[in-house]
């Protein structure tokens, strides 16, 4: 029983981390109409950033603000310099350009750091276990990640749902042209959304660094699962991304524990079912 509870917690934590990544993806799709296959690479960059910060300063916690601020700046630069120009290009162009970004990011990482696996130690402050039912204990750091992700998710929902800027983002996701008509600078909204999405993906990477080792291509698995989350949740829907991320996180984690060989397939099966039932996602209005 305790073991099962531990897996549930793992699944929730994994799902919330997926939410951090896919909420950015779904907003960028919804608002800008851009498909970003390099989103998983941003996760990888966040993890390596955490590794470098933790190694040079000896303080893991500095990595979190570094990932957020670094992500905001990096995202804004990417959007202004590159993605803004691709918005109206064909899908094939967008796919290949963001594929090129993956290759270039990987190459930059290899040149700046290396191609090795690295372990990032769990911060000393949280390097203990919390007992749960049935004699099982759960890592305090994992609980902290769960908490941080929940706070960020609540912040996202509040920001999107209850602020003026959030309303503009929702309007843009619903109908891109309407923002211009309302007299809001659509370009600013795009930069904001892309920068936020980048920062969230990099934050997720930094948080994940002590949980798994940091390695090249670590974003690949997350990229695919995030896409599945977006498909299940519905394009541009934050609430959809949230529930879909939890569902996918739980199924993937429990699947890996109880039917390890079918975990990768189980999530895709779920997506197939959703596509059969509601091709535009569970939370879309269409």
């Amino acid at each position, binding site marked *: 029983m305790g073991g099962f509870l531990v897996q549930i917690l793992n699944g929730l934590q994994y799902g919330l981390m997926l939410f951090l990544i896919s909420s950015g993806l779904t907003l960028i799709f919804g608002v800008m109409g851009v498909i970003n*296959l390099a989103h998983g690479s941003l996760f990888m960059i966040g993890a390596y950033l955490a590794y470098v910060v933790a190694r040079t300063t000896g303080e893991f916690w500095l990595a979190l603000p570094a990932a957020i601020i670094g992500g905001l700046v990096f995202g804004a630069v990417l959007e202004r310099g590159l993605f803004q120009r691709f918005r109206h290009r064909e*899908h094939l162009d967008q796919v290949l350009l963001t594929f090129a970004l993956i290759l270039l990011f990987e190459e930059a990482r290899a040149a700046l750091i290396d191609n090795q696996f690295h372990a990032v130690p769990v911060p000393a402050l949280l390097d203990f276990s919390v007992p749960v039912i049935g004699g099982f204990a759960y890592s305090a750091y994992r609980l902290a990640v769960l908490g941080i992700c929940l706070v960020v998710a609540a912040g996202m929902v509040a920001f999107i749902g209850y602020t003026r800027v959030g309303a503009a983002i929702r309007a843009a996701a619903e109908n891109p042209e309407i923002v211009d008509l309302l007299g809001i600078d659509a370009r600013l909204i795009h930069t904001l959304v892309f920068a936020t999405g980048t920062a969230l993906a990099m934050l997720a990477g930094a948080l994940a660094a002590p949980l798994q080792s940091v390695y090249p291509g670590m974003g690949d698995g997350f990229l695919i699962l995030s896409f599945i989350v977006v498909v299940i949740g519905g394009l541009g829907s934050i609430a959809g991304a949230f529930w879909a991320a939890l569902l996918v996180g739980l199924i993937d984690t429990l699947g890996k524990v109880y039917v390890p060989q079918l975990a*990768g397939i189980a999530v895709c099966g779920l997506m197939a079912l959703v596509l059969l039932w509601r091709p535009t996602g569970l939370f879309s209005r269409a």
Partner: protein
Amino acid sequence: MTRLTPRGNLLLCLGAFVLASMPFWASPYAMQLASTALIGAMFALSLQILTGASGLVSLAHAGFFGLGSYTVYLLGHTSIFVSLPAAMLVAGLAAAAIGPLALRTRGFYFLMTTLAFGQMLFFLFHDTPLGGGTDGVFITRPDLIWTVSRAARPVVFLLMNLVALSLMYSGLWWLMGTMFGRALSGIKVNEDRMRAMGHDVQRLKLAAFVVSGGLAGLAGHMAALTDAFVSPDLLDWHHSAEALLMVLLGGIGALHGPILGAFALTLVRELGQAVTERQRLVEGLVILAAVLLLRGGLAGWRKR
């Protein structure tokens, strides 16, 4: 979809003759390289009838390619007359299973769902014992009509790949001229109009998806035959993206484009390898150049 005029096809034939004459003047290494390009061309050509003709960008095709390859492994020791149709059948059936689901969606959703289903096939061979392990396995080549000595292999496989590509190209050249091919082009230009004209757009797309998947399986079969090695990487979506790059590089919408694109990419990679060890840098820059500068592709044709 534009097709070459008879004169253009004559030029392609000339290219084929040059390749066929390679055994007289080229090194075994060069012939293996040509085989790699021919297989790439088959794979990209299979995508062209989907992406180029009807405008659907699929990231699942590496999965179909890999299924074709793994069919050879799973069949064990057999004849090529069994393995070739089996590979196409398995890949085509997978496309027929995935197609109806993926085609319920459009645009970005189609991209994402094909990516996810393609990765599902990847995981099937990566995570389960079915495919013989994550690092790949060497396979027993199927029997050809006669036994081939080790020294003759580059020559024989070069010629076989050349014949396979030629047959595939000729078949598609014919297919794109039929009502089916023209209807696909119509879907790319204006899907709603095609529907209004009474075409069953969904069925046409599905047919294109299945044919395209089966042909990707054919390319995968030829790859397995040539390399005698299969690995889950064949099914990875990065492999799909590479085929899309060949399509774009050669010129989207021109039937012969992928052939030019495959040879160009293989050549650039080979030259890049001589200059730097940073493969991904070379490939990344090639993509940037192809998308940002070479907008017509090598075939010089592009809508608008």
